[in-house]
């Protein structure tokens, strides 16, 4: 051991330099806080790091082939830059990444593409198009040994060797530092239609969303928003009534989107769909959902819960008898963004106990440091799964220098 790596902020300009820094950190056993622009750095257990390693200087799109539906970018490239480039070619990121910046005290549009994939936070279209991870075709990354590794590639189909790329998605920088990603993109949807029902109780709202997903109309967004939260939508006609809002989105070529919206409207007649948004208003509505506008600056802890869709309202109902919670159901009820009162444990004990009855998992996205210091931010795993998790960490980062302890103690 030759002493500790210089404490501070490192944003190397090249992958080689980044790999060198990681190798040095491994030699000196310096725990690194790995991040892009750091918009999500407050998510995770409270940990002391020796230095910060940012990919923010690794910027640029090295390949974009619109007719092959593929884009390759360095990890520090801002998502906003990629989205703009795609829009110029009538394409988009199919997984519609949620922008956590605003709810975590940052401005919108600051996340990097590496950060989005490292955290695998997918938006409303996940139910139709798949998750961020599903669109990851290949990566270059630096593991905890300081080795630069590649997996996957830039082609749509690839089963050559183990799928390390997707395994790194959602690992929150604890296994390797993503330095470059190849992603699948898709044509942008030209016409958007959104059907809205107002004032439905949670179980009914989620039932409607399930019915919509059980049609052949390729529904691409299904949210149900609690009445109090719905008051924060930008569109006044939607926010003013102060009632719950249940929204179903269809995207397609204009004639198809209109046809499908009208068919769905007929099928859901019993639930009185009261409003149909055109493309411009639809985009405003779904942008609010994408940036979680209703949870900005509330001063309340925010949870992200994934579970079987029909169980969602049962969980929320059960919790509501004990603590004051407000829910936005996405993915037809399978994803719940839930805010809780700023109590010591941010509601963790109740949420995890209740969730155990139904199955699923909860991650604390926003909370005061005191809360993050005492509770499990990520869903605790049972012993055999935890052992495998530890073995996997060991396989990538044997001395434990990449975001150690961020997800789980000792991992």
């Amino acid at each position, binding site marked *: 051991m030759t002493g500790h790596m210089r404490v501070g902020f490192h944003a190397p300009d090249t992958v080689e330099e980044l790999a060198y820094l990681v190798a040095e950190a491994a030699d000196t056993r310096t725990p690194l806080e790995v991040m892009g622009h750091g918009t999500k750095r407050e998510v995770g257990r409270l940990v002391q790091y020796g230095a910060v390693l940012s990919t923010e200087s690794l910027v640029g799109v090295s390949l974009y082939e619109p007719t092959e539906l593929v884009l390759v970018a360095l990890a520090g490239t801002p998502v906003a830059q990629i989205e703009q480039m795609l829009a110029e070619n009538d394409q988009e990121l199919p997984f519609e990444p949620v922008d956590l910046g605003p709810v975590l005290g940052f401005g919108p549009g600051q996340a990097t593409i590496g950060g989005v994939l490292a955290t695998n936070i997918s938006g409303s279209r996940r139910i139709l198009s798949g998750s961020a991870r599903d669109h990851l075709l290949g990566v270059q990354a630096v593991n905890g040994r300081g080795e630069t590794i590649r997996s996957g590639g830039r082609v749509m189909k690839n089963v050559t*060797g183990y799928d390390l790329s997707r*395994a790194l*998605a959602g690992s929150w920088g604890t296994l390797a530092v993503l330095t470059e990603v190849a992603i699948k993109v898709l*044509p942008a949807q030209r016409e958007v239609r959104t059907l809205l029902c107002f004032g439905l109780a949670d179980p009914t709202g989620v039932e409607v969303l399930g019915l919509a997903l059980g049609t052949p109309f390729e529904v691409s967004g299904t949210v149900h928003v609690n009445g109090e939260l719905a008051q924060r939508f930008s569109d006044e006609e939607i926010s003013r009534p102060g009632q719950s809002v249940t929204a179903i989105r269809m995207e397609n070529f204009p004639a198809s989107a209109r*046809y499908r919206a009208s068919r769905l409207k007929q099928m859901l007649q019993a639930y009185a769909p009261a409003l149909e948004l055109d493309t411009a208003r639809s985009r405003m509505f779904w942008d609010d959902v994408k940036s979680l506008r209703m949870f900005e600056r509330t001063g309340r802890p925010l949870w992200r819960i994934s579970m079987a869709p029909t169980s969602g309202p049962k969980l929320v109902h059960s919790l509501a008898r004990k603590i004051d919670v407000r829910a936005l159901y996405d993915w037809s009820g399978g994803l719940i963004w839930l805010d809780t009162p700023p109590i010591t444990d941010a509601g963790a004990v109740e949420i995890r106990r209740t969730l155990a009855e139904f199955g699923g998992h909860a991650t604390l996205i926003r909370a005061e440091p005191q809360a993050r210091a005492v509770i499990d931010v990520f869903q605790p795993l049972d012993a055999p799964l935890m052992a495998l998790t530890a073995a996997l960490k060991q396989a990538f980062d044997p001395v434990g220098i990449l975001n150690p302890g961020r997800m789980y103690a000792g991992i």
Partner: protein
Amino acid sequence: MSQLSMPRPDPAIVSRRAEIVRQLKKLVPDVVLIADQEGRRTFETDALTAYRCLPLLVALPGTTEEVSKILRFCHDNHIKVVPRGAGTSLSGGALPLEDSIVLCLSRMNKVLSIDLPNRVARVEAGITNSGITQAVAGHGFFYAPDPSSQIACTVGGNVATNSGGAHCLKYGVTTNHILGVRLVLMDGEIIDIGGDYLDAPGYDLLALIIGSEGQLGVVTEVTVRLLKAAEGARPMLLGFDSSDAAGGCVAGVIAAGIIPVALEFMDRPAIHVCEHFVAAGYPLDVEALLIVEVQGSEDEIDTLLEKISEIAMDYNPAVMHRSQSPEESAKIWKGRKAAFGAIGQLSDYYCMDGVIPLSKLTKALDEIGWICRKYRFDVANIFHAGDGNLHPLILYNSNDPLQLERVEMCGAEILKLCVELGGCLTGEHGVGIEKRELMRVQFTEADIGQQMHIKAAFDPDWLLNPGKVFPLEGNRVQ
């Protein structure tokens, strides 16, 4: 047998066969054990039939607990295990080793639960791929990944190879449709990963298990996503005078924002064989044929096919024909799905599975033709054009050992070409034994090393399906 060798069998294990059978009979009395030579012969190969090896023993368990007991026994006795579904692997993924027990999951073929409101089903790993869709089709749902072998192949095998299919351009491959698995590790530990919800907690272990070719654990149960079937679907045929024009047309369709549900390509030799075999109505006087399928209501289908026809006009199509009836559509697909079988009637073939970036299509086909001529083989090309997944079928005589050796060299050269063009060795068939030695063409030592560290994290003694995926030299089983 050609140049690919397998890890040396452990004579101590081979000589203990009778004793191992006795012990297993006592340990798991309800498991079907096949120890006689004739019975074992059924399992000596998979769909890569050039390679054969009689296993030590074959075990057909009926429950996860039995799988766990067998694996723990093998772990404690240091016996290798080769997991197997229906044995349809085209890369030798289920090839036994002389000192291995083949663990065949075909008896575990039940649907455990169907939850339509949540659009998921829980099945045992030995159910066939089409068995899942059959169980839910009455309600208008289906399981999306559709490999050509779907009538026979098991979902467990699909998980092992991350199978794709003709419709994966729109729907994605196996990894996009699995929500959870019950996995038995080599030491017998039973682990549940994921469940009836999207995105499992913690690390994405499913991503690693799917496509790991049975090397990380044995999957006994699977939770799959179910999708609602489209209102309707209809293919059209587009014939061109050159593969260049066909490739241009594919790019043009995608550039127009249309993602067809399937986009299949056949070259002249493939068209002729399929047409002769199935009478699917394919045009015989074109160099390249595209089968393009779109979905939706009748009106939507008409609109989309009209748009595609307009785009195709820019590439001087020799033939443009929209299917006129469900019967005709079925026939068009029957031709494509029967293609491998049809070619197999004529000759033995070696099926490649490389992937290339679509923009390199013409170059790839030209070079493949050139490479095959150099080795004096005929070749037919059938592939998923939307995603660049090529399937050159090299025709050869498997009874001629010299030809077998030559055809493998020819195939290897084609796969190296795919990598050079920016693609990869295998799009859906897996590495198995077949492409094991080519892994270094695509990956560095550090890349392969990282994968081997993962293998060791799940199976420290390298007992599960050894001798596959990784180059044998430097592979820890040796």
